[in-house]
């Protein structure tokens, strides 16, 4: 219910009008790359193009704050400019000192009380959004996901659906009339991380020995990008993050295929055997095999993902080989060790991995 309410956060007509004005300014300022329609996945993770309720509530608050601060800037800035231009000493003047003025209690009172009122208004507007986003209660239809931050990749578990995947989160689109928001429980396996998809929600940190949570309810299908936003070590920069917002049917199909155990084809048995007797299995899990490590991403459906190395490279044959043999070429400092396989073994392993759809 709380979720319903907050989609209808009421704003006065004045606020909306000001927000519109400000949005124009903001768009002009922020990005010359034109303003496409709202609520669309875009390659630019622009916080001013929200596609989910938490991001949208934040967006509207931010416009309100921008208007207020913009007005303050214009007023105080004009006064300063006026003073600088008007009161500069002219060469023509006599050497007399200007009249000393030591202060004015009326003025001081004025510029104390007015900021107090502004602060009060800003605080109330802010607190309303804080409570609406943080106190939202998951409806029964909500998807529950557990996100676990690792150096330097993301693990996603869907406990109710029995799915474990990595780096690319799939969620269903949420229709306002029948909301299916996704509530994400945030954990960390090592250092601090932060989950940030600017178009879907503000960031929330993943902190070891602590449970955080956040939620999104994307309004439009598509792929949304983001990345780790809390410095977590050497490869913080390449701890990229993708959220695929699927139609309900696509999402159901994706869940079905992810739930299946790994394909076990005889054509790539050689590669599988190499994987099973090398160090791969210490860190990676492939269902139906002896590989059950949890330090690295689950590879059961590796080929269902568009990228490898937490978004650092497209999931292509060449990249996969390179990543196995020489991870530092893609992501120097990542915790994936170079496997030092013979060329033939490397081909076999790659072929096996490419069978994991």
């Amino acid at each position, binding site marked *: 219910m709380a979720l319903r309410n907050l989609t209808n956060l009421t704003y006065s007509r004045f606020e909306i009008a000001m927000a519109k004005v400000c949005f124009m300014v903001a768009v002009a300022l*922020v990005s010359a790359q034109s303003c496409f329609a709202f609520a669309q996945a875009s390659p630019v993770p622009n916080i001013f193009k929200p596609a989910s309720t938490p991001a949208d509530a934040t967006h509207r608050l931010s416009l309100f*704050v921008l208007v207020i601060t913009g007005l303050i800037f214009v007023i105080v800035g004009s006064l300063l400019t006026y003073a*600088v231009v008007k009161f500069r000493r002219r060469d023509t003047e006599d050497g007399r000192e200007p009249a*000393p003025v030591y202060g004015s209690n009326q003025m*001081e009172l004025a510029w104390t009380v007015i900021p107090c009122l502004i602060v009060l208004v800003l605080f109330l507007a802010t607190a309303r959004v804080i409570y609406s986003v*943080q106190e939202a209660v998951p409806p029964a239809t909500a998807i529950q996901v557990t996100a676990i931050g690792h150096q330097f990749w993301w693990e996603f578990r869907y406990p109710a659906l029995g799915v474990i995947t990595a780096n690319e989160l799939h969620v269903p689109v949420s229709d306002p009339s029948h909301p299916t928001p996704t509530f994400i429980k945030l954990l960390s396996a090592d250092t601090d991380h932060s989950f940030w998809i600017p178009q879907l929600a503000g960031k929330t940190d993943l*902190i070891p*020995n602590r449970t955080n949570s956040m939620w999104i309810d994307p309004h439009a299908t598509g792929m949304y990008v983001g990345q780790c*936003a809390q410095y977590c070590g050497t490869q913080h920069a390449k701890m990229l993050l993708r959220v695929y917002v699927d139609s309900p049917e696509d999402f159901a199909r994706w869940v079905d295929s992810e739930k299946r155990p790994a394909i076990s084809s005889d054509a790539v048995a050689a590669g599988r055997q190499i994987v099973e007797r090398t160090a791969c299995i210490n860190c990676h899990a492939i269902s139906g095999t002896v590989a059950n490590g949890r330090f690295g991403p689950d590879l059961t459906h590796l080929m269902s993902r568009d990228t490898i190395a937490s978004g650092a490279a497209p999931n292509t044959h060449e990249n996969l080989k390179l990543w196995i043999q020489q991870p530092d070429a893609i992501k120097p400092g990542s915790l994936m060790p170079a496997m030092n396989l013979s060329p033939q073994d490397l081909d076999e392993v790659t072929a096996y991995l490419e069978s994991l759809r």
Partner: protein
Amino acid sequence: MSTESIALTTVGEPARPFGDAITSWVTTVDHKRLGVLYILYALLFLLIAGLEATIMRIQLIVPHNHFVSPQFFNQMFTMHGTTMIFFVAMPMLFGFANYLVPLMIGARDMAFPRLNALSFWLTAFGGLLLYFSFIGGNGLYGAGAAPDVGWFAYAPLTAKAFSLGHSTDFWTLSLIVSGFGSIGTAVNIIATIASMRCPGMTLGKMPLLAWLNLVMAGMVLIAVSPLTAAQLMLCVDRFLGGHFFDTQAGGSAVLWMHFFWFFGHPEVYILVIPAFAFVSEIVPVFSRKPIFGYPVMVAATVGIGFVSMTVWAHHMFTVGMSAYGNSFFVITTMVVGIPTGIKIFNWLGTMWGGKLIFKTPMLFCVAFLFQFLVAGLTGIMLGAAPFNWQLNNSYFVVAHFHYVIVGAIVFAIFAALYYWFPKMTGRMYNEGLGKLHFWLFVIGFHLTFDFMHIPGLLGMPRRVYTYEPGRGWEVWNLIVTVGTIVQGIAILTFAGNLLYSMFKGRFAGSDPWDAWTLEWSVASPPPEYNFVKIPEVRSRRPLWDLKHPEDPDWKYE
């Protein structure tokens, strides 16, 4: 009166004049010499940390650049931040406090001159210890490595498990050492102001610079000590196997954040309040009017001091505090904007109706006012917690705090350097080069930090050694890097001006600005022990009273 009569010169054969000069500087306990040492030390580290910033900006000029390795980039931003805060800004401001406070309150030295020297050398060796990590980080047999945990060094990244070798040890030990230096200086500043004021200088007649440094020193005592305590805990963890921030043993990473930011946020005000102090002294002189609303300025500063102790967790809106906790830190954060706004209005009131003289120090002050205004307003945006969920740890934050630290604090420091240069050296700086420096720096600053806000709004996180193409960040990063280079040229202009004027500048005389506070009543540079006869004052502008006996201030205050 003649200064020669009290100048204490070492009598003896000048066998090794250079060696003697070094000895006299190293062993000095004179507040002015220590002040100059602080300032020179800070300028040296400014160049080093500026170079580190330039390296980072070159790496980020295009996506997927390979100028430096990720490890080196991470060391660069850690060292840049740590150096700029602890070994540039703080020593610079302590240097000015050391130099100016006794002169402005009519005292012959600080209250504890030897403690003063100890504090300086602690700070100095703290900085050297930090930089020794480049050689000794992993032990001399390894290549050595600087710390790479970021300047706020969030746990558990600093734990032994994630930070092998000794680089983090160098970081934490150097901050403990320099922290004791800071605390010593703060004790000294407060004792000096409390116990050494010249007759007649009641608290209400003290120059604002002394008042603001008093508040700053009080904040150092309350806010820097927790940093020292937290670093001691980190040492317990790293050296003795403790578990304060060990998340594997039930320790809390969030506790470190609280401790760090309980220091970290007041630290911003510790830096900016002395900057306010410079502006509060310089703007009146170059407007030819007394400061507007002196008591309100004092009250606002004290108010900032108190409120800023209650805002620290606004750096932690994204760590999952309760809605109540978040709201609390929203209101305190916004409240701190009120006294800050009052100060801006009072400076405006000082300029209003004056006759503004745009010498270099005043130019820097005017730029300070505009830039501090913007920095405050982006601060309000960041204080609105939901907006912060988007902006925190993005380049918007980086732009915001550089607006504060460069746009406000560094600009005020440059104003102060130009304003008191004639007092410290006895020679006038070159006005043309000063203005060139100003305009280059303004252009470079705005190219860099105005445009740095935008990638933050477009989702670019901070502390990334590289970024993906196609996210709309390329052009902004390019502009930012270009701005950095312009700033670098400006700084070199400044250094050139400094060196040139030190030796070739024309003699300035004791009072080149026709100013009103006591430091301008003694020779330039002031003799040892400053005042032959301890002055007596009757108003906030003792030199005005002296120059205008027909219309003294004390009749009105």
